[in-house]
């Protein structure tokens, strides 16, 4: 299934490219209002039309991509930075009190309704992109911890790990030098999935007004603005929504494609 990989990679790099280009160039200034030209449908001058303040939607989508990617990327980073060491530790000390503590802690975080907690966190710390990152990142920790532990457990039974132990390496060194490189593929695949979930979560939080704050453009807030205008200017709701869908779709396809590419065993079973 190379098709997933190509299509997913193409969609994802398109979004990343739009975000990168937005640093140096956008068709219009994202903050520039042009009230006489408000609510215009897509045209040659405004490719994605204009919003209720006459701002150029194409420019806003480009800069919004930046916000989405930044929030989701850092949230995945938090999850990996904390979750992977926790998972490695739990696997190295299987069935010890440490393992039990980490796994029960994981269950506990999973039991909290993530969206409600994210809203709670942003309400406590104040709305904003940084707090949205923290709120989304916390729920990535148990995901990576669990995946790492599961994959590491089976590796600990293998002979090459046994050999490393006989050679006198400590559990910590074995975990980082031998276990981690072998579970990395799995973590990259999960990373893409969490990345796309992060983009969805950021859009949701921004939509209810708890994510990135004005004047930083964000896809979720563009949708919130569109809600009252949807009958007058459907493009205001359609375009940011499609941007989210295509980005998430692209990342999911990329994740699937990578999994098939990195794990040949699955390729046979899945097709």
């Amino acid at each position, binding site marked *: 299934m190379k098709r997933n990989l190509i299509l997913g990679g193409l969609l994802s790099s398109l979004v990343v490219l739009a975000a990168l280009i937005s640093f140096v160039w956008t068709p219009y200034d994202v903050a520039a209002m042009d009230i006489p030209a408000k609510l215009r449908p897509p045209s040659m001058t405004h490719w994605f039309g204009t919003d209720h303040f006459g701002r150029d939607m194409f420019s806003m989508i480009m800069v919004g991509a930046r916000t989405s990617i930044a929030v989701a990327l850092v949230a995945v980073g938090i999850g990996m930075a904390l979750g992977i060491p926790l998972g490695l530790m739990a696997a190295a000390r299987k069935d010890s009190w440490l393992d039990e503590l980490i796994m029960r802690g994981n*269950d506990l975080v999973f039991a*909290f309704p993530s*969206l409600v*907690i994210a809203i709670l966190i942003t309400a*406590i710390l104040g709305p904003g992109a940084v707090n949205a990152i923290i709120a989304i990142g916390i729920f990535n920790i148990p995901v990576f911890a669990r995946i790492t532990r599961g994959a590491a457990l089976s590796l600990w039974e293998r002979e090459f790990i046994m050999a490393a132990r006989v050679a006198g390496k400590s559990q910590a060194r074995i975990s980082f030098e031998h276990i981690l490189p072998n579970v990395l593929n799995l973590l990259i695949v999960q990373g893409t999935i969490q990345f796309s979930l992060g983009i969805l979560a950021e859009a949701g939080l921004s939509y*209810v007004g708890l994510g990135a704050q004005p004047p930083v453009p964000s896809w979720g807030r563009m949708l919130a603005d569109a809600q009252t205008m949807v009958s007058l200017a459907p493009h205001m709701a359609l375009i940011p*929504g499609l941007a989210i*869908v295509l980005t998430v779709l692209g990342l999911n396809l990329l994740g699937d494609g990578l999994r098939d590419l990195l794990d040949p065993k699955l390729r046979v079973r899945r*097709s």
Partner: protein
Amino acid sequence: MLRYSLKRLISLVLSLAVASLVIFFVIEIAPGDPASFMLGLNAQPDTVAALRSELGLDVPKIERYLSWVGGMLHGDFGTSYTYRTPVAQMVADRLWVSLPLALYALGLSTLIAFPAGIYAAARRGKPGDMAVMGATQLGVAIPNFWFAMMLVLVFAINLRWFGAGGFAGWDKGFWAGIHSLTLPAIALALPQAAILARVMRSALLDILGEDFMRTARAKGLSRRQALWRHAVRNAMIPVLTIIGLQFSFLLAGAIIIEQVFYLPGLGRLVFQAISARDLIVVESVVMLLVFAVIAVNFLVDLAYAAVDPRLRQRT
């Protein structure tokens, strides 16, 4: 089995205790004193102090935590700071919207996912399978609140089949209530259906490779008979787990959808309570949702152990 159940029960109680501690103290460190928030910026210090003692906020935190937990054990969730009504009553009112909505969405999602998943598994690798899998990829990628807006645009604004928001109330009759929950339920059900269909398909594919499936075919069942009689039934275990998880997700996850449709549900209650610093309401509702998730997981674990003795060995 008894030993296993006891062990799970202890871990359930422990989880709930830890969860209540986390919820209470995380929310209590939130900046913004409810009393001064309610009275506004120009309130006199002694008025604020009087309100604080009226709301019971002058008592030490530990005591308030203990009385909160103690009260919940009796079904007393405290009194809302802003509405001055029992939290239990407010939650019960909102549950009349959120619970039917969650069940409705779960029903819809199951109704879509089962046939789709079974169909895709039966036609593995053929165009039908590809179409279903493509549709589920799209379903997972669509943010439900955006889908909700699109539904409003098409079915409420253009076709005028439904209202754009609000809840008719059950006193206007069962169908009026169902009617106003239909668009929200569809919006909620779509991503869930996509996930469930994928789980159903992959569970079926795992089972189709089992020896007993070959035996079923060998004794003369057709592909279709073997699929329905043996595979679907065995695939139910992973599928039911996901349905259990989805139910608790739908109960809490409706928060944004309730915002789109202006539905007076549990999620909207939490949202309003957070912005009004009505901490006791936030604490109680979050606790209730966490309890729902932990309890569902507990029941699922027990049900599995009852069916499959091998699982009792684990954890």
